[in-house]
């Protein structure tokens, strides 16, 4: 086994920022807004680095698809302990329409090229909440998948994954190479310590174009309109259950 783990990291609007819709309803305001690494991607990086520290794998490669600024996100992964980075350049219109389908094609191509033993992604991104990239990547590669992982144990060429599902926890054992997606409780990501931030400056980030990987970025989706959720209306207080039923009937709710 190559002992190489690919980790996908996405640059998203920082969780603490208040999102605003653009006046033309074409999307949300991103200019001048603080961005950071998707929290679930942080958890994915942490898990990969932990596997390396346990000497179960040899190399952690951080991958990000996006414009120039995605390199900052890769640097954060390097500061957390990733060995090198790959920046897949996607900018302009292509970046606006970049979604799980395109990213999973890129990840699949890279996983083959780098002969990855594992691909670890965050379970979803906090901007689009898609929860698709991991699953699509596994399907494209025809690899097993362990999604919503809250515990990962690597043993030789098998991975035991405890998955968080609606009914509780499900434990599966899959063969590598495999795709895993990180859920909230998988681990607590480390702070990039200052010495590691300085060390990360020397680590390499390779530049790749999607065309080099034979990936077609055309989107199958067109965003028609983006709106804020409706304003929350004030509630009405009632005295009795009869009143409540009456009011609900009145307003056509039941």
């Amino acid at each position: 086994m190559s002992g190489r783990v690919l980790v996908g990291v996405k640059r998203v609007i920082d969780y603490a920022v208040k999102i605003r819709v653009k006046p033309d309803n074409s999307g949300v305001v991103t200019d001048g807004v603080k961005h950071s690494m998707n929290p679930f991607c942080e958890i994915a990086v942490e898990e990969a680095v932990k596997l390396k520290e346990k000497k179960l794998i040899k190399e952690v490669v951080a991958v990000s698809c996006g414009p120039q600024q995605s390199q900052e996100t890769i640097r954060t992964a390097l500061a957390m302990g990733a060995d090198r980075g790959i920046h897949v350049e996607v900018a302009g219109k292509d970046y606006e329409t970049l979604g799980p389908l395109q990213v999973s094609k890129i990840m699949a191509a890279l996983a083959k090229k780098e002969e990855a033993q594992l691909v670890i992604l965050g379970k979803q991104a906090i901007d689009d909440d898609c929860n698709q990239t991991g699953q699509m990547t596994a399907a494209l590669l025809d690899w097993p998948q362990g999604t919503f992982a809250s515990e990962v144990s690597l043993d030789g060429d098998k991975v035991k994954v405890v998955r968080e599902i609606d009914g509780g926890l499900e434990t599966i054992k899959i063969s590598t190479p495999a795709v895993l997606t990180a859920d909230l409780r998988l681990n607590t990501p480390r702070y990039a310590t200052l010495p590691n931030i300085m060390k990360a400056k020397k680590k390499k980030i390779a530049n790749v174009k999607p065309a080099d990987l034979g990936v077609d970025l055309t989107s199958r989706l067109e965003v028609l309109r983006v709106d804020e959720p409706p304003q929350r209306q004030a509630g009405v207080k009632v005295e009795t259950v009869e009143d409540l039923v009456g009011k609900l009937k009145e307003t056509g709710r039941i």
Partner: protein
Amino acid sequence: MALLEGALRVNLLANSRSFYKFTSFVGVRSLSENVSSKPVTSSSPEVAGDHVLYTQEHFALKDSLKKLIDQEINPHVDQWEAEGKFPAHKVFKILGSAGFLGVNRPAEYGGLGLDYSYSIAVAEELGNIRCGGIPMAIGVQTDMTTPALARFGSEELKKEFLLPSISGDKVACLGVSEVGAGSDVSSIKTKAVRKGDEYVINGGKMWTTNGAQADWMCLLANTSDGPPHRNKSLICLPMNLPGVHIARTIDKIGMKSSDTAQVFFDDVRVPCKNIIGQEGMGFTYQMLQFQEERLWAVANVLTTLDIIIQETIQYTRQRKIFTQPVLYHQAVHFRLAELQTEVELLRSLLYHATALYIKGNDVTKLASMAKLKAGRLARELSDSCLQYWGGMGFTNDVLISRFYRDLRLISIGGGADEVMLGIICKYMDTLPRK
């Protein structure tokens, strides 16, 4: 607008049963209706290439520190303020392990050997802590007790005191001010009399930040009977020696989470080798540290002032009086614009002074000006903003009142306004001539 962020959060929460990691996210978006998506706390560009002082490394450092603050410090601030003390050993160990306590200290003692602009970046980021006491305590540890030791201390002394202070294993405090001498440092009375190869120390110190928890004190004492600027020395004093009495912690109106002690020395014996550098040079060493101290204080308060303005905007946007938001009244948004302008001016002065300092210049005049302005602006701004919070501003339930109390100290501690004015006048050559 309340549901907008709710939509993003709820999705997350629905999929992951625990909110513990994200409760801090929910808490941040407290007052939510109709709020702009640009809570840019600093108007300095986030793009590394354009910033006058900071590179991408500086921003990476700030991001990492902010995360640490959000996870390890801010969730506990209210509790520590109420208790009148924060766990210094615990917090300093977390910061030390992540490398934040020795940014511009030598690498052989665990520091990072970076230039002072990194210390300023750390100071700025610490302004995100939701009180004044803890950043102040950290600042004492990093920039008030160790500069002289790092520059002039012996190898042995640095191993014993500097190294563990940088790693966060030992808590340091500064013993300079006394009951009878604050601004007038040269008239301190604490004496360290040489007896054989020991100093015997008698006297006391006041206003000692971290005093109740410290493992060692950087002590300024009279070691001979010479002229007052040449008879003092800096001594590394372990706080557990017999004769060191922590008389009390002072009940202050602000900076509540920082323990401030009054300490007495009763025939305390310390080896002579614990002296930093040369005997008699203590006063000079102490003065050298001040430029860094003052710039640090300015950097720290700027972030806090930005936060106060942003939170005031958020509050006044949703609070209605006479049928419209408080913020819509011209007196209010115009005043906030004035205050933000002043903050930007002070920020420019800070970067200007820091850039010159890194190149090796003496920035005493600029640092004193910046400190003077920081203290006064902090008072003016917190007072004006508190007014716009109305009755709520007068309660202990909001951040503005805490900062109103905490920031009042800036004009007093670390060099009172009047001392700053005296220094500036000296450089302007306007003081009465002898």
